[in-house]
């Protein structure tokens, strides 16, 4: 008798604004405690919130990307509860009229496509942080984060495995970065995933769910959900009941443990915030956002296959981030679209390997798209071979100049002079008489040996095509 798994995700994406959602304080990460907390962020008497208009367009763009309804009248509500890192005693959020309504996102798990519903996305302010243990016997409150703009993206309970949940989370992670509305930094908490997990017998109503909060890597999200599914099955099969609660994932022991039970939950006494007017969004506002939206990953992927003849795999890798895709397109453009496949190969192997090795972001790479294109142009016009290109690439990466400068300085130009190649061929054949006999006796694999020897003698610079052609002539 098998169990059906039901998973829904709540993702908090921190929006890439300069300042907080209701005040002018900076939201830069890592500042000293309370250095980015104004009188508004401190909830001082008489202070009032003023909406940062930047969060509206960013939210609309996500809504459009999810084919969602945009809330034409979006209302902020107060969620009342008291905690020292919540200065006003309420969080300003959206309950009944969120800025983004029902939408969806298509995911791909091992080649199987599935559409995951997105219930809604609403704007809210983040709380501050309580630091226990910094001051002995007391809790330190840091309000730098208080008021940071968040878009909480709530999925339908449409995922039925940890793999699907992670595929959805990754897809959303890619999307918000593509849209430029969130930097996606999970370590700094800019993209936080909470998972609601429950199990049931097929056809039965939903089981009691538990929530796994604030896990900061996709790998751990997958492991945590998998553990939690196993735990719930065990509880139920042993005659117990799953308790509705929040559980924390312990990555060291690969387990989850109870954090707080919902029975202790507050009555949040939501009501519309009387300090903020409803946000009215017109068709013109939506069209204006649409006009400035970047091409979305799925569209780009399909276009890369059709326009450049790339494999699905290469298109997938190249559109994995907006920076990578833009770099690739710049390379293709700078090589006059002569050989997009060659560009793709170099991007997915040489370039991708190099940034991974040095742990760099695409935008921090030491070479520009124009530099990479400069090298690829020399491959395409036979100035250098693919093998020599690896040497050139490494030199460029180390800051030794452009491809042309390196080829010139190191004398790496391919030998295409027929006379010079003929001399090399003759020399190698003369020095390897027994192998020539063997070849003539039917051992055709000797051809590879001759090519290798000739290339070696040329220091790798002989044009391999010409060498092959000449060898065949000489040996026939």
């Amino acid at each position, binding site marked *: 008798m098998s169990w059906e798994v039901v998973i829904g995700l709540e993702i908090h994406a921190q929006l890439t604004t300069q300042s907080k959602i209701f005040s002018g304080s900076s939201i830069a990460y890592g500042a000293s405690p309370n250095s980015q907390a104004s009188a508004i962020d401190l909830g001082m*008497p008489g202070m009032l919130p003023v909406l940062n208009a930047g969060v509206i367009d960013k939210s609309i763009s996500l809504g459009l990307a999810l084919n969602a309804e945009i809330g034409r009248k979006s209302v902020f509500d107060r969620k009342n509860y008291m905690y020292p890192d919540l200065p006003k005693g*309420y969080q300003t959020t959206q309950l009944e009229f969120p800025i983004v309504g029902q939408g969806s996102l298509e995911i791909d798990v091992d080649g199987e496509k599935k559409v995951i519903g997105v219930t809604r996305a609403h704007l809210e302010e983040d709380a501050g942080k309580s630091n226990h243990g910094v001051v002995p016997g007391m809790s330190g409150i840091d309000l730098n984060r208080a008021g940071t703009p968040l878009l909480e993206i709530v999925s339908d309970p449409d995922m039925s495995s940890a793999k699907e949940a992670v595929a959805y989370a990754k897809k959303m992670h890619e999307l918000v970065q593509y849209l430029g509305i969130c930097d996606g930094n999970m370590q700094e908490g800019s993209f936080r995933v909470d998972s609601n997990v429950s199990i049931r017998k097929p056809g039965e109503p939903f089981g009691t769910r538990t929530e796994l909060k604030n896990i900061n890597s996709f790998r751990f999200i997958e492991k945590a959900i998998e553990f939690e599914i196993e735990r719930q099955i065990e509880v139920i099969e042993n005659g117990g009941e799953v308790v509705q609660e929040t559980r924390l994932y312990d990555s060291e022991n690969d387990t989850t443990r109870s954090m707080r039970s919902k029975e202790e939950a507050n*009555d949040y006494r939501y009501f519309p915030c009387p300090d903020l007017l409803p946000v009215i969004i017109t068709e013109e506002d939506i069209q204006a956002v649409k006009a400035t939206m970047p091409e979305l990953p799925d569209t780009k992927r399909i276009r890369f296959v059709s326009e450049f003849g790339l494999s699905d795999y290469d298109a997938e890798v190249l559109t994995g981030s907006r920076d990578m895709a833009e770099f690739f397109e710049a390379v293709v453009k700078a090589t006059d679209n002569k050989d997009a496949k060659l560009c793709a190969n170099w991007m997915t192997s040489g370039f991708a390997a190099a940034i991974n090795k040095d742990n760099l972001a695409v935008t921090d790479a030491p070479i520009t798209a124009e530099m990479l294109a400069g090298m690829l142009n020399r491959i395409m016009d036979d100035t250098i071979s693919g093998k020599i290109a690896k040497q050139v690439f490494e030199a460029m990466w180390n800051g030794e100049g452009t491809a042309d400068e390196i080829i010139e300085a190191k004398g790496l130009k391919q030998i295409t002079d027929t006379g010079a190649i003929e001399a090399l061929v003759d020399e190698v054949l003369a020095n390897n008489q027994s192998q020539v006999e063997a070849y003539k006796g039917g051992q055709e694999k000797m051809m590879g040996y001759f090519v290798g020897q000739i290339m070696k003698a040329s220091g790798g610079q002989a044009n391999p095509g010409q060498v092959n052609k000449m060898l065949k002539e000489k040996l026939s």
Partner: protein
Amino acid sequence: MHNLTIKQMSEKLHAGEITSVQLTQHYLDRISQYDAELNAFVTVTPELAISMAEAADKMLAAGNGELLTGIPIAHKDIFCTDGVKTSCSSKMLDNFIAPYDAYVVEKLKKVGMPILGKTNMDEFAMGSTSESSYYGPTKNPWDLNAVPGGSSGGAAAVISAGLAPMATGTDTGGSIRQPASFCGITGIKPTYGSVSRFGIVAYASSFDQAGPMTRSAEDAAWMLNAMAGFDERDSTSLERETPDFAAELNQPLKGLKIGVPAEYFGEGLDSGVEDVVRNAIAEVEKLGAETVEVHLPNKDLAVPSYYVLAPAEASSNLSRFDGVRFGHRCEAPKDLEDLYKRSRSEGFGAEVKRRIMVGAYALSAGFYDAYYLKAQKLRRMVRDDFTKAFESCDVIMGPVAPSPAFNIGEKSDDQVSMYLSDLYTIPVNLAGLPGLSVPAGFVNNRPVGLHIVGPYFSEAKLLNIGHQYQQVTDWHKQMPEQYQ
């Protein structure tokens, strides 16, 4: 000097006949002389006042003075004032000194109005008598046994006794107009959104509105000109060009249509008050106005609606007073729960606690629809009544309160009776309309005001009517004998 109108004071200041320092010192002297018995001030700021007066005199001497430059003012203790205690008459904020000015304070400072001090009020503006102040009740200058009204009772007493020529007030559920009526002064609550709420300690955000409390409608017009304006720091502030509220002062009232709502003259209205109000309306008719009967059928829904919505907002607005960052903090808290419980139990008075509990209840799961949402519906019905009434009249006139000022302690044990005494003022707050109270006579030697309510943005018209009425009457010029 304290019998001059604002315009007269301004003329003397600009002509150099008096200095702002002299004028300010005159009021400071009167405060020292009379405030001990009135308890109208929470804080008096003589040094600040004199240094601001000196600066104002320099502005005047340099020819940079505006109409109100050099004229001293008293701020209700709900307006945050940089460097001066802002207590809201609560133990909770007894130690609170804001590091910023409220928009209104900032604006009037820039004009050069010396600050005499901060006036007493009902704690967190919750009350109609100023008795709930942590600092004790303010007395009515007309009768020291009577309340001055509330919540801006200190401000009303200050103007009535001539301890300041102008004072700021706030009106959430009648808190400018009712004390104005009880103390025989002029007070106007402008259209919601006309004056920025930035820096005003919030009670009920969707109702709170600041306004002038003065001796005459003309003075109020000058002061409103200086207080109003769009402020980007308050999202509910009206984004429009601020009109000249004094522009219509001298217009004749010929053809003015006064709506007289039958519902405002029914059961519960003191017959003496009714006579005063009807006589006042008759006086305005003599100036060329005519009366029409109008109806506000949902009047009785206003008080219940208000006493759900205002406490609901208050319960949330007052959550920030938790003993963590500012305000009263209990001694040696055991843990977080203890810190919250004791700081708040000790810091808030009974009426504030009552409204927090009522409000939290109205918002709680399972009760929200029956209370909060229903009260919002009633609020719309009350507003629609006015919209309909204004189809057949220009303004509505009636009483401000059902009785003149009552005695201190008389209603403090009967909350419902006290809440019901706001039945004429609260509908105006629910609708967000402007309302004016001008002195119109006396009942048992206690002042009674005439309430004039107009459509949105009709402040200039209301002040015009008030001013024309004050041209033919002298109720507003009368002062309690011992303070003349």
